[in-house]
């Protein structure tokens, strides 16, 4: 019996052979999360953009690999003196994947749909400043703002602002139709999404003919799939402890980049004792960031001292404002009348930065007399209890949206800061279009939230990619969640 089983196994193994990657014009890219559906304009799931952004869908502007905003479907633009009117000149000769042509009406349709009353766009706030969108002629779009908005071009580069067509909007969730260099080909739910080169692409043709995205959530399975060369690249590799092994293996390259994910120990600014700035400062000084990065993230991650991405040119290094100093922390607690310490809740969502980081932070807080009751929550529970219900003392979460310091201006946002002086800075920033003045305002904003110790600022989430050593052109950083394959190629 046993012999028969082994024989059958061997026969199957030989029969199928080793069919790794057939041609050098296809690529298999793995990532952890599968998109829930394929409409980037009606869900927050980063996985949708990770597959489709810049590959299938394009916006008027787009993010380049370095995070700068460059022209996309808009060739160029003029901004009126008062900063209220943006006139975009569109690329010509662009068609959607279903053959219908792209023009100013599609832009109007897409933007009006995103900001409509019944819109389900997860980032509707991006379009708040827009008053009207007009199709002047097929190649010209005029956007009029209610108030000046210095971030408009940046906002239009988001995956939530891509251009879709009224002809194909009906089926967008399962068969997306965009203008990008790759066409959607097939989706085997639970397993993979396949793209193929768009022969009619208006821009430079990509080197790849086909691309397959596979979804492997388990870290051990992720490791096995790369080692067995089932996949050519794994973006956002979930097991950092295995990276040294890949680095040592000549078959692979390891690319560690940065993301827009500020990982913070959020404090409930309206709940005692965290409504006392002294207590918040005490928490901040009790935390040893490097120990968390080493212990929870295996050394991946850049310490931050405020809610801002360190790779951004406007970043101010404020780590020293909340340096690791347990003695200072105890003094501050005493000053706040809590010399005996106190007990609070620490609610942790599923990602490993939170679960592993939470244990380390709990130990560090215990050193200064703060006891935490840890509870592990699923995302849906976390959203309900912490984010919406504001029923928490401490929590750990990574805010992955780019340039999201504005959340501190929302008094009802879950950590409940919304200090009027800060709101004033944000209002000024939104109306300011001069780059230098904007930069100064952004720096002020960073300083204010760091000095107020609104949250414990831990580290910028890293983005490790493991890929076949012969692949080039993958993004190192994640200025937005994307796997831009237009510049990816195989080398010898």
């Amino acid at each position, binding site marked *: *019996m046993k012999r028969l*089983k082994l024989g059958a*196994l061997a026969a*199957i*193994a030989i*029969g*199928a052979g*080793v069919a790794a990657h057939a041609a050098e014009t296809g690529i298999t890219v793995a990532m952890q999360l*599968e998109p*829930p*559906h394929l409409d980037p304009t*009606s*869900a*927050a*799931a980063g996985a949708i953009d990770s597959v489709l952004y810049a590959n299938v869908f394009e916006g008027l502007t787009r993010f380049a690999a370095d995070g700068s905003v460059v022209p996309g479907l808009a060739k160029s633009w003029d901004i009126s003196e008062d900063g209220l009117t943006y006139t975009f000149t569109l690329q010509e000769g662009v068609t959607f994947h279903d053959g219908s042509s792209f023009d100013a009406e599609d832009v109007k349709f897409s933007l009006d749909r995103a900001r409509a*009353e*019944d*819109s*389900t*766009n*997860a*980032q*509707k*706030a991006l379009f708040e400043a827009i008053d009207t969108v007009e199709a002047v002629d097929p190649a010209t779009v005029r956007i009029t703002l209610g108030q000046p908005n210095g971030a408009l071009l940046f906002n239009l580069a988001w995956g939530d602002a891509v251009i879709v067509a009224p002809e194909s909007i009906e089926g967008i*969730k*399962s068969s997306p139709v965009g203008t990008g260099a790759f066409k959607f080909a097939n989706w*085997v*739910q*639970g*397993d*993979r999404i396949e793209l193929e080169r768009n022969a009619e692409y208006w821009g430079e043709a990509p080197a790849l003919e086909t691309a397959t995205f*596979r*979804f*492997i*959530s*388990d870290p*051990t*399975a992720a490791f*096995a*799939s790369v*080692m*067995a060369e*089932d996949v050519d690249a794994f973006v956002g590799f979930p097991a950092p402890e295995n990276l040294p092994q890949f680095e040592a293996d000549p078959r692979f390259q390891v690319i560690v980049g940065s993301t827009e994910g500020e990982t913070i120990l959020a404090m409930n600014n309206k709940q005692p004792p965290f409504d006392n700035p002294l207590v918040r400062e005490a928490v901040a000084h009790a935390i040893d960031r490097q120990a968390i990065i080493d212990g929870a993230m295996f050394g991946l991650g850049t310490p931050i001292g405020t809610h801002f991405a360190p790779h951004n040119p406007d970043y101010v290094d404020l780590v020293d404002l909340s340096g690791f100093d347990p003695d200072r922390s105890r003094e501050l607690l005493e000053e706040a009348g809590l010399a005996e310490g106190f007990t609070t809740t620490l609610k942790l969502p*599923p990602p490993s930065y939170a679960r592993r980081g939470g244990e380390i932070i709990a130990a560090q807080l215990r050193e200064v007399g703060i006891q935490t009751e840890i509870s592990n929550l*699923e*995302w*849906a*529970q976390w*959203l*309900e*209890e912490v*984010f*919406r219900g504001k029923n928490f003392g401490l929590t750990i979460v990574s*805010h992955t*949206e780019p340039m*999201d310091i504005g*959340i501190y201006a929302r008094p009802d946002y879950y950590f409940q800061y919304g200090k009027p002086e800060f709101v004033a800075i944000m209002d000024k920033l939104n109306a300011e279009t001069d780059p230098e003045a904007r930069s100064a305002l952004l720096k002020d904003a960073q300083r204010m939230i760091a000095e107020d110790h609104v949250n414990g600022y831990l580290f910028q989430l890293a983005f490790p990619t493991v890929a076949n050593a012969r692949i080039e052109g993958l993004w190192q950083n994640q200025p937005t969640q994307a796997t831009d394959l237009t510049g990816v190629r195989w080398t010898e």
Partner: protein
Amino acid sequence: MLTYLLKRLTSLVISLLVASLVIFLVVEVAPGDPASFMLGLNAQPDTVAALRSELGLDMPKHARYLGWLSGMVSGDFGMSYTYRTPVAQMISDRLWVSLPLALMALALSTLIAFPAGLFAAARRGSAGDMGVMGATQLGVAIPNFWFAMMLVLVFAINLRWFSAGGFPGWEDPLLALKALTLPAIALALPQAAILTRVMRSALLDILGEDFMRTARAKGLSARQAIWRHGLRNALIPVLTIIGLQFSFLLAGAIIIEQVFFLPGLGRLVFQAITQRDLIVVESVVMLLVFAVIVVNFAVDLAYAVVDPRLRSRR
């Protein structure tokens, strides 16, 4: 006979109804809202409300329950909240992975357990028996996900005979079977170990019976006696275990599906739970309840086949 069948059917319908109500309530009570999950941290409250009404989540609970129930009766499981595709379609896609996997694992475990159990029972106390029993101890003790990882390490990473996971689809049946081979083995071995032990002890019980002594007395060899009279009588507990195992294999392969990243039913439920895709969770669980009840029914019928006494009692 007919009244008996009617009775069974009524109780079947009632248990399905009760199950559906329990499932619906349990899933609805769990905290978390699918719409806010979909829209993330930056969504505005009116956007969440718009999505909730698009999904029909703003309807009262009893209306949603009745809608779900009446849809299911006509084979319409509704639309998934997150994927926005018909749930029935999703389930049937996933069944094409989970069902063959469960069947393969069941076949494998039976093919291993029957001969092994027979062998051990026939040679009770011998070195061979000890060997088989030792192996089953090991098989029961080893967690199947660890065993799965070892299989991947040896056959996918080192020997490169198999891919580490994934499922290519049934266009090429050979490739599909190949993709299911390692997961099926990982699932089958612990089950085979349990089944072997049940098989052995059932046979040993039977061997002590008078009719076995009679069989030997009328001149059958020990092997012939087991084969003709012992096996058939030992099958009842074995069938019970097989029935239980099949339900477990169908639904309980979640971890193995994660290790081999297979798009099966277990993984669908797992994803649906984290995304609060309530309607998918409810429908899949309901389907599994249905499957368990049907399998139990089938096992009951099989009892009657192997044991004529049960037939006449009805």
